[in-house]
């Protein structure tokens, strides 16, 4: 499998602050890749360096073998970025913006007009084609950004927090569209705060923190190597105090009961034994494996993604 993107010792320095501390990893062609991390981890900085929106201080980034600095014309044709920040243009309609953007890439003609029509249709923007972006809601603006990123049919689509502030319907539409692009062979790189989305969509994940890659593996492997599984216990009487052993395993305590984490090597009978010794009357027990969010929290120590 050839590589879509290669990061080699990428650094970014702002004065004495190191936003990226020598990032190195690869994204294979055709992958659905998740780039996760808490705020300030350096995800957007890395993506912007790849797209040419900022100049890295050191290292090298290649897209399909082309250097993003030396061969920027090729890499920008290969990449489509949906930036995190919403963008407005008070002078042009959405259709004009898409036509202008096509022009920057030197693409015009009947076929391109059809592609623009298709993008407008697929992203439910057809009835807003002659509106200017200032007249649109946040969700609509987000769709415009996706259309702009796809107007030159890039092989690699980079989505930086595409569902931030987007309603459930639109989020669903976006993911269906993104999955379709992936099935057609596009490489997708995604950053998101919604880790259940990353878990459902991404085959491979890099978790970043403070400018470094903390973990890099397939999503299934990351979940498999997590040392705990989780036990949800519904109880008859929630006033019974928990033993020390149970307290140190307690993750959540709510109206539905308790959520404990259990080392994978421990059996369910060990867990039931601990509950029994505490005098807790168990109504129901359900177990599950770790979610990506729990893996993420364990790796980053973050309260939330």
């Amino acid at each position, binding site marked *: 499998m050839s590589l879509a993107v290669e990061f080699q010792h990428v650094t970014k320095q702002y004065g004495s602050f190191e936003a990226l501390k020598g990032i190195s990893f690869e994204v294979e062609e055709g992958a659905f890749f998740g780039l996760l991390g808490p705020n300030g981890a350096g995800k957007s900085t890395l993506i912007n360096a790849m*797209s*040419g*929106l*900022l*100049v890295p201080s050191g290292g090298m980034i290649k897209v399909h073998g082309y250097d993003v600095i030396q*061969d*920027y*014309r*090729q890499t*920008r*044709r290969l*990449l489509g*970025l949906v*930036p995190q*920040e*919403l*963008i*407005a*243009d*008070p*002078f*042009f309609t959405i259709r*004009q*913006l898409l036509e*202008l*953007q*096509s*022009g*920057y*890439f*030197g693409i*015009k003609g009947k076929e391109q007009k059809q592609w623009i029509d298709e993008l407008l249709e697929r992203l439910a923007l057809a009835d807003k084609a002659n509106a200017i972006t200032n007249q649109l809601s946040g969700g609509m603006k987000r769709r415009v950004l996706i259309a*702009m990123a796809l107007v030159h049919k890039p092989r690699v689509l980079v989505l930086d927090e595409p569902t931030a502030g987007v309603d459930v319907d639109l989020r669903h539409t976006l993911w269906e569209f993104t999955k379709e692009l992936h099935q057609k062979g596009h490489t997708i790189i995604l950053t998101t705060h919604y880790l259940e989305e990353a878990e459902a969509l991404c085959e491979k994940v890099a978790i970043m923190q403070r400018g470094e890659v903390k973990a890099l593996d397939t999503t299934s492997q990351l979940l498999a190597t997590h040392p705990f599984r989780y036990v949800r216990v519904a109880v008859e009487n929630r006033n019974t105090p928990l033993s020390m052993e149970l307290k140190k395993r307690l993750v959540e305590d709510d109206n539905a009961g308790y959520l404990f984490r259990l080392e994978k090597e421990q059996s369910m009978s060990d867990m039931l034994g601990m509950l029994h010794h505490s005098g807790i009357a168990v109504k129901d027990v359900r177990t599950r494996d770790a979610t990506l969010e729990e893996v993420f929290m364990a790796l980053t120590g973050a309260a939330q993604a």
Partner: protein
Amino acid sequence: MNNFNAAGCWALFVKEVKRFYSVSVQTIFAPVVSTLLYLLVFGQVIDTQIEVFSGLEYSQFLIPGLVMMAILQNAFANTSSSLIQSKMHGNLTFALLSPISPFEFYLAFIAASVVRGLAVGVGILLIGIFGFDLSFNSPSWILLFAVLSAAMMGGLGMLAGILSDKYDHLAAFQNFIIMPLTFLSGVFYSIHALPEIWQQASHLNPFFYMVDGFRYGFFEQSDVSIGLSLLVTLFFLTLISAINLILLNKGVKIRK
């Protein structure tokens, strides 16, 4: 593949022209009207009292200066306001993500600022020739100085747009540098009418050479030689272009 992206450069130029054309009342008609007001007030009131060049009425002398002042100010305004607005709204990102080189980016912006400067200049001249007896002795000098000066000011506008982080910075640049230099460039007077010290000071103002060279195209009379004016204009155009291209190549305040 690193050849000139003519289609991309053209698209960006068209975008920049369409941008100012979409608000042409503000970007073309308003400067034409305000310049004509200058002409009305200064030209009509002072006309009979001053003869700047032999055989020329003051209003005849004034019109080319006012035209050049409008060209300079509008060429500057075009690049500077477009860049700062694009930075503020974030839509500069679209061009930055495209395969347009720093030189193509620069060329497209400067060409659009020349078009706006000339549009305003032609608008003033069209009205001026109906009301005043204007001669166009050397149209090629007129056109050359109009284009070169607009390009230089477009470049200066780009520099201000790149360096400014907010509208306030741009306003400072415009009000404390551009306005004084254009008003003190000999638009309203010949520098020979000034005391010696101010004549010397005027020679340090690059805008003076642009106004003087442009005026030469009309009357074939000027304060300094046309060659010197051309040389100074070309020098500043080259200098400003070089600074811009260095900043754009490095991505200063654009590619953060």
